[in-house]
């Protein structure tokens, strides 16, 4: 019984096939498509450096939310379609920070501080629920996200917010759908050490902030607890037999994911410049899910590299397609391409046999 692959005897064609199989055809197509866009951009006159800075900018807004996918994938809870729950914690942090009168960079810090307990409490409840329904996480996560967003829609109207920058002007109560962050934490991270060379502008602060969180996640996965979490995702029975409390690890991963989503939305807001409430968080899980999958993750394996590559590819397509396609064929098909590419990627991942052999 020699199950090890004899790699020396493979022909080039076999190798190519093995590469495509391991990398995944859809992923290859998406990467090739993006490459084509970059080549086409200067030809059709859509400033190359502009495109690059746009992509980097959007990368910096979204990367943390994609990072939030990592812990739950590692612990075997699957793709976190319940990301909106974490986003809501972030929104509570953001609005309460402004309501309490904090301004400028301090308001960002306070938003994070206030969002944290919400994320932890909601994460614990969410984790407890997911532990009761092991195996059916993804569908229930989706609907937990939807329910919580629609529940908060009522709350945004009913909670006693008073800050005039946030409530509707005429009635004096109920939060607005979009709240400008000017004077609060608009671009606080992005403007820190920003680099501008011609058309290229790099939001160094935001990238650094993401780097710190990504490093933290990488480091966590190298600790005893992080190792246990990965083992739980890889084979829960093995972990149980090795004395690991499987439910506790899963719970921890859910809390981490929820907290990162809360931070992620705050980072997004500081780049975007507005807080979006009500139905805005509704579909925010899907771009993050497809981004990490495009980056090479599967339903039960993900790394920091997957996050970086995936976010870059996904945001590249989001920013490039409208301009390049418009210039090329005078037809804005970006929406269609984005939907087909991202949902197609998720479908591809769902139909793969889960690698963990049981």
């Amino acid at each position, binding site marked *: 019984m020699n199950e090890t692959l004899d790699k020396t005897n493979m022909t080039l064609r076999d190798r190519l096939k093995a590469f495509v199989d391991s990398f995944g055809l859809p992923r290859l197509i998406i990467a090739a498509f993006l490459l084509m866009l970059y080549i086409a951009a200067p030809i059709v006159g859509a400033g190359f450096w502009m495109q690059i800075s746009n992509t980097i900018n959007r990368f910096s807004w979204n990367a943390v939310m994609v990072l939030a996918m990592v812990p739950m994938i590692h612990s075997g809870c699957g793709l976190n379609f319940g990301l909106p729950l974490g986003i809501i914690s972030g929104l509570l942090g953001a609005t309460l920070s402004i309501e309490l009168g904090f301004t400028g960079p301090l308001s960002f810090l306070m938003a994070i501080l206030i969002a944290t307990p919400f994320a932890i409490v909601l994460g614990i409840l969410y984790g407890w629920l997911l532990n009761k329904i092991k195996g059916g996480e993804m569908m229930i996560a989706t609907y937990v996200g939807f329910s919580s967003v629609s529940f908060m829609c009522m709350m945004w109207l009913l909670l006693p917010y008073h800050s005039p920058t946030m409530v509707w002007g005429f009635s004096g109560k109920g939060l607005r759908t979009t709240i400008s962050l000017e004077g609060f934490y608009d671009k606080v991270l992005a403007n820190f050490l920003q680099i501008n060379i011609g058309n290229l502008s790099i939001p160094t602060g935001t990238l650094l902030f993401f780097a710190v969180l990504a490093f933290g996640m990488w480091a966590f996965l190298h*600790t*005893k*607890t992080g190792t246990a979490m990965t083992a739980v995702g*890889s084979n829960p029975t093995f972990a149980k*037999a090795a004395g690991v409390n499987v439910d506790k690890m899963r719970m921890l991963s859910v809390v981490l994911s929820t907290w990162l989503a809360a931070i992620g939305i705050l980072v997004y807001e500081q780049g975007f410049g507005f807080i979006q409430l009500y139905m805005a968080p509704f579909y925010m899980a899907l771009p993050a899910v497809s981004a990490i999958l495009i980056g090479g993750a599967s339903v039960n*394996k993900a790394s920091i590299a997957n996050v970086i590559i995936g976010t870059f590819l996904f945001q590249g397509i989001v920013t490039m397609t409208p301009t390049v396609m418009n210039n090329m064929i005078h037809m804005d098909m970006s929406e269609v391409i984005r939907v087909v590419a991202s949902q197609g990627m998720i479908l591809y991942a769902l139909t793969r046999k889960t690698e963990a052999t*049981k």
Partner: protein
Amino acid sequence: MANNNAPLLEMRNIKKAFFGNQVLTDINLTLAEGEVLGLCGENGAGKSTLMKILFGMDVIRDTGGYEGDILINGEKVTFNTPFDALAAGIGMVHQEFSLIPGFTATENILLNREPKKKNVISEVFGDRLDTLDYNVMTGRAEAAIDKMGFHIDKNMVISEMPVGHKQFTEIARELSKDQLKILILDEPTAVLTEKEAEALLASIRSMSEKGIAVIFITHRLHEILAVCDRVVVMRDGYVVSDEPAANTTVNEISSRMVGRAVETTAKSEIRDKSDAKTIMSIRRLWVDMPGEIVRDVSLDIKEGEILGIGGLAGQGKLGIPNGIMGLYEAGGTVEFDGAKIPLNSPRKCLDASLAFVSEDRRGVGLLLDESLEWNVAFPAMQVQNKFLKNYLGGFVKWRDEKSIREVTERYIDELAIKCTGSKQKAKELSGGNQQKVCLAKAFALEPKFLFVSEPTRGIDVGAKSLVLEALRKFNRESGVTVVMISSELEELRSICDRIAIISGGKVAGILPASKPSEEFGMLMVSMVK
């Protein structure tokens, strides 16, 4: 019919190997119309493989087919799928139920063979839109139940039935097939109450009177003697005896099942450790492990010995380590080294310096998608904080990749694990090497007490002796008490000091390994449930 003198079924020189492992050698078997044939043998003797060949199961073809001929009424046949076998009149009742839980007995008996009525829509859209003819269905189900001779409620939904009735529903399904000539019953009485088992024997007799030949596989030898015309005993892939049931006894059969020329590795000396202190004492243990239920086990294990636990499959021997180590729900008391071990908590067992090598390598034993390093070091890291570097006063416990690699490489050398390196993924190794990784994982915990469950299952002969040698060395050199659970009695006899036989979820007896295998054979079948 080609030849009226030919037996109904004849199997000639059947041979089968799985990946070079010979599991059946020159099997010859005949079966006459209406004859009841008892087939017995230890687990792994080749009974199931033989029946799978006869029934045309996919697994046989997927693993390279078989050699030899099967003749029905003197004509050679080849079954590519179970459906071919069914068409030729062979029916089989498997150990696992194959029933739709929400259907009635009638619907299950006629599953996918329902009588149908044509209608206008089905004329247009094809016969899958024919309506079912419930009257005819009821009639056929009743007829099959009558043929069986044991009454079950044909309108009862399977999920509400007592387990014995499910078994009878399966039998009725086979009987409802008009072409049925040979019925294979694979341990049908395992789930039956005593009364139901008697009813089944009666129904086998009545089937045989109606001309149906029955192959009856069971561990309950008295049942075989009660109902069979002929008894065939298999051992290690050979037929060791084939004679009329009237000429033999339970004792004879059981000794043939286990007795064999010992060809395994050099026997180690058998030590008498009865003076040593009792390191683990198990009292009134029950374990809810599906298929391996432990009912009431009390056992004392002496320090430094190698204790074997044997018995037939399904009798509960595997449940003992799995229950004590907290993998399945268990009750009773277990004392280790003078202190009580809380059950249902794997962590507490590991903390008390127990270790367990599971029989389910792929499911429990390994992280298949991770490197050997992770597999070897993981439990020791989690339980004993080994292979970690502490930073910030122990707040950060960082994985120490270097010491993990060192320990893995050490065990790769010591156990001669064939791999490309310590970073190779566990799933890429062969079964025997995977088993060694499982041992390395347990050794890395440096336990005082080790449970090893089926350590040689599914691995080749060379790897077998290496694994057993490693265990013996571990016991002798580190003084670790080892409890080894195995279905292979000879393997236990070659390495253990004492052997406990589990039968019907209870300890049937404990004997020194030097006793002849016939005595163990008697114990194995003594309390079979």
